[in-house]
């Protein structure tokens, strides 16, 4: 049966071994922005994202991976953000998302 195309894709399932990842940067980020821990992964930020509407960029995915210690490429990804602030207005947890973008870039500039 041909799959119905709903206009979005689903990421491939994968396993992250938290014991193997170095969480130092992640801890630093969460210490400076504790509210990020309250993210419920709803994806509203990504749904409205100006940049995500024009290119492959998924804000929720990037910050979720960073929290899990997967830093590879996060800086480059975050550089796609235009800091427009729409995500901040829709986040149901009131997370300072623009602050998150800037913080991740500051912490992971050398990855």
């Amino acid at each position, binding site marked *: 049966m041909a799959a119905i195309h709903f206009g979005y894709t689903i990421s491939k399932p994968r396993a992250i071994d938290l014991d193997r990842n170095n969480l130092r940067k992640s801890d630093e980020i969460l210490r400076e922005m504790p*509210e990020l821990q309250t993210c419920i992964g709803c994806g509203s930020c990504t749904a409205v994202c100006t940049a995500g509407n024009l290119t492959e960029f998924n804000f929720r995915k990037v910050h979720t991976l960073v929290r899990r210690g997967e830093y590879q490429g996060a800086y480059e990804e975050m550089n*796609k953000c*235009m*800091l427009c602030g*729409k995500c*901040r207005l829709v986040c149901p947890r009131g997370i300072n998302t623009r602050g998150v973008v800037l913080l991740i*870039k500051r912490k992971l500039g050398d990855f």
Partner: protein
Amino acid sequence: MNFFVPFCIPFIVGAVAMFITLAWKWGLWLYRLPRADKKRIVCGLPTRATLDAAGEVVCESLLHRRIFRVNPLLGYMHMSLAFGWFLLIAVGWAETIAYVGFRWVPLQGHVFFRYFATGLPHKPVFAFIMDLLLLFVLSGVALAWGKRFFSKRMGMRRTTRHVLGDRIALSALWFIFPARLIAESTTCALYEGGGFLTGTIGAWMGEHISTMTLLTLESVAWWFYSSCLGIFFVALPFSRYMHIFTEIPLIFLRRYRLRSDEKESSYDRFQVDACSRCGICIDPCQLQSVLGVDNVQSVYFLRDRRYGMLRAEVADNCLLCGRCAQRCPVQIDLNTLRINSRDRLHNIPAERRYDYLKGVDRSSGTGKVGYFAGCMTLLTPRTLVAMERIFHAAGEEVWWADRDGSVCCGRPLKLAGETDAACKMREYNTELFRKHGITTLVTSCPICLKVFREDYALDGIEVLHHSQYIFRLIQSGRLAIERGAGQFTYHDPCELGRGSGIYDEPRAVIEAIGLLLEPVDTRENALCCGSSVANTAITDGQQLQIARSVTAELEATGAGTIVTACPLCKKALGRGAVHAEVRDLSEIVADAVSK
């Protein structure tokens, strides 16, 4: 008369040190100015600008007219110190000439003239004027003392907390004039003369104190006076009092059209050092009044920047609402300075960034009038729908720049300090507008409006805020409006009001629809909604707190509807409102369009 005694040494050393430091600082700042700025100065020198600047120096640096407008008592305090001291020097100079004729007298001869003049015949008119002036300055000093304890009486809830250099200079300054009073009085006690102040005190001292004691006291008092002056002069270029000498060149440079920009430049030094740390910018700041954050206001930002101890936490925690800049008596361009500090802290090279924008064009329509919704308007679709209805009712053919996906205008990036990246957005959007050959660009977001007007090179395209556009439609009869019984209050968005000077059009439009009720803080003094994209530091809860305080004031007008003209303000106020409805200007217009 040789005009030298040992007690002059502290004064001379201080004065020489001060002038060397000043010359060095000014020279360096001027030398480092970009070539274009230097050219502006040279071209401006022989024009009217020079005269105007001189006039402004008298009004502001001496008389402090703008502070008078904030609070008369505070203005008097600043004026008595500045203008009074200036007159003391000027009249003192005249006094010396009157006594000894036109001959060269060294600096200390003028300053300590009363000490040297004891052998000369008495000139009561000068003695009287000089005493009057001294009293004038002393009244200012007394007020300055008082301000420390009763700041509220001078219209200030909070006063500035000072650094060590300031405290030294401040203490020296506070003692200079009382010391002068005592020194001159003791001299009068010994040699007679003096006016109603020094003469009277001197006579009293002469009666009650023995001559031997008076002789010692005289030497001590003059030494003390001279030391206070010396300490003050040495500390001056490193303290807030540097503003005395920096405001003057700043006024001239500003008249020659030098401006600060998104990148730091040498001209900024004149602005930064011209801050007198008067603290007038503290009270209007809502981060202070609502949130109790009290170390980020412009006065502290400038202080930290000046001494090279600026931290990102301070630079970033500001709404760039402009409420402080609006009040600043020195008219420092506070927002731009904040932006270029952020640029230094956060800018990253952006050659390869946003390559994904190549070839993107989601626009539709063919009109010569372009409509740019902006990211925020796309999140407030009612505004978008209302604009659609208005365009339709007016029969306007519209080119929709970004209805199906926008590229940001770039201002949020600029406000965050990523100015190179903002440049990319500018390039992209400019090319898009040019490609579609529009002649008018309408936007419903004041943040976009400001960047289009100030940073884009859009010659040949008129940029309008939707409030201006709608106002024109109504005025020219293209849009018929029915007046109703609605009662509205209007929130001035910062970027639209203080930022772009648009206050009247939105009000005229509202008055065409219903009754407009003004809140307490309105127009130039309007409050910020708190959700400004310029602030990446405060939390959601803090934004909400500010929004609540603002809507409380708006609701106090009794209006059933809060109208604003910024999608971001609408979102922010919508969260804070308790019983009023929050709507964009376009929505109430669309509802009132005659069927």
